[in-house]
């Protein structure tokens, strides 16, 4: 049996977490190669629809990373993220999809190490959960 190698999508805001990811790169911090970053301007622009679409189509995990509360480039943009993502997670739980497949966290532009840590831990967590049960589900 081949090892389960999850496919993960990460939405990173331009100002903090994408810059944090860049810093991790500049610092040569090594991490598992399962996470694919999509740059958005603010975590507040991440529609829960993207999360649902990704999971339903078989992506194993979705990360939403933004600036720390109080540091949002757009004042209180991430305040909405901090509420939208958790409710989307609950909606997933309600229909039996493990909400641990979705993670919201804050990574500042100075936190390359935190980015590495979040990625490493999330990949481990998804590996533990196993393949997305919705993969291949045809209703």
């Amino acid at each position: 049996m081949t090892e389960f190698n999850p496919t993960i999508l990460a939405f990173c805001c331009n100002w903090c977490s994408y810059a944090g990811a860049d810093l991790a790169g500049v610092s040569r911090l090594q991490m598992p190669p399962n996470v694919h970053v999509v740059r958005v301007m603010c975590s507040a622009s991440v529609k829960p629809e993207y999360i649902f679409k990704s999971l339903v189509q078989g992506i194993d995990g979705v990360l939403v990373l933004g600036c720390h509360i109080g540091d949002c480039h757009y004042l209180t943009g991430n305040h909405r993220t901090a509420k939208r993502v958790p409710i989307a997670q609950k909606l997933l739980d309600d229909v039996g999809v493990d909400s641990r497949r979705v993670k919201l966290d804050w990574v500042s532009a100075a936190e390359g190490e935190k980015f590495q840590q979040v990625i490493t831990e999330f990949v481990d967590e998804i590996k533990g959960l196993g393949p997305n049960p919705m993969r291949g589900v045809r209703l």
Partner: protein
Amino acid sequence: MNELGKKLARIAFDERGADYLLAMREEHGNVAPSMIRKGEDAGDVRVDLPYQLVNILSNIYPWVPKGRIAVVCRRCDEKALNEIIKRNLMDRDRLILIGLACTREQVALCRCSDPVPSKVDIGEANAPVREDPLMVKLDSMSQQDRLKFWTSEFRKCNKCFGCTLNCPVCFCDDCVLEEHTFTPELGIPPSFAFHLVRSMHMSDKCIECGECERSCAGGIPLLTLRKMANRDMKRMFGYEAGDKEKVSPLLTTLEGKLLEDGEHVC
């Protein structure tokens, strides 16, 4: 004109100064929503059918530019109107609500936790139902079983859009679920995403009228799904849709402040 017709005409036109009365009326053995003008014979009005007049009102509202409209409202209809008015889609001053208390059978049908209108004009207040038995059952299931349950339920969806079309708080003319941006699969049944996206959109405005469930051609227990989301919303943010003033927590700051105030804590 039956007794109910007389009573409603009196309340609407004589006591509360309405120009129109929106109610269910029986004509030639058929019951249908009717817009009754002031001075017109109200006819044989019926309130015993669970029918959601808010959608009818939303449709005719733009075509009735003047005058005050009285509408027979259950508690859920009243809450739906609150959601509509909050969004400036209707003017509260133009509406007169005639409160209809649901019968015990109707309360049971909706597993309704909030069945009594702010003012009862017709009918008698009945006790709420505290629990949705299916929700209790689903909560006790394992995650895998819950996924199995909803997978088999959603398989019955034939994408008739009954749930959205009959929903009083679905405001959009063309539904995003008709497109393929988030629900890419063509054909029937639609993917899981269809139901998840709708769950998200309803999460801060569903007033649990149960119209989606009654409209569903596949018999999917959609009201239970809505009730689960509403419970989550209440637990997480203390928010219940249908409030006159409160804005959805998904649109405010973490402290619950409106962004318009210009007083962001950041």
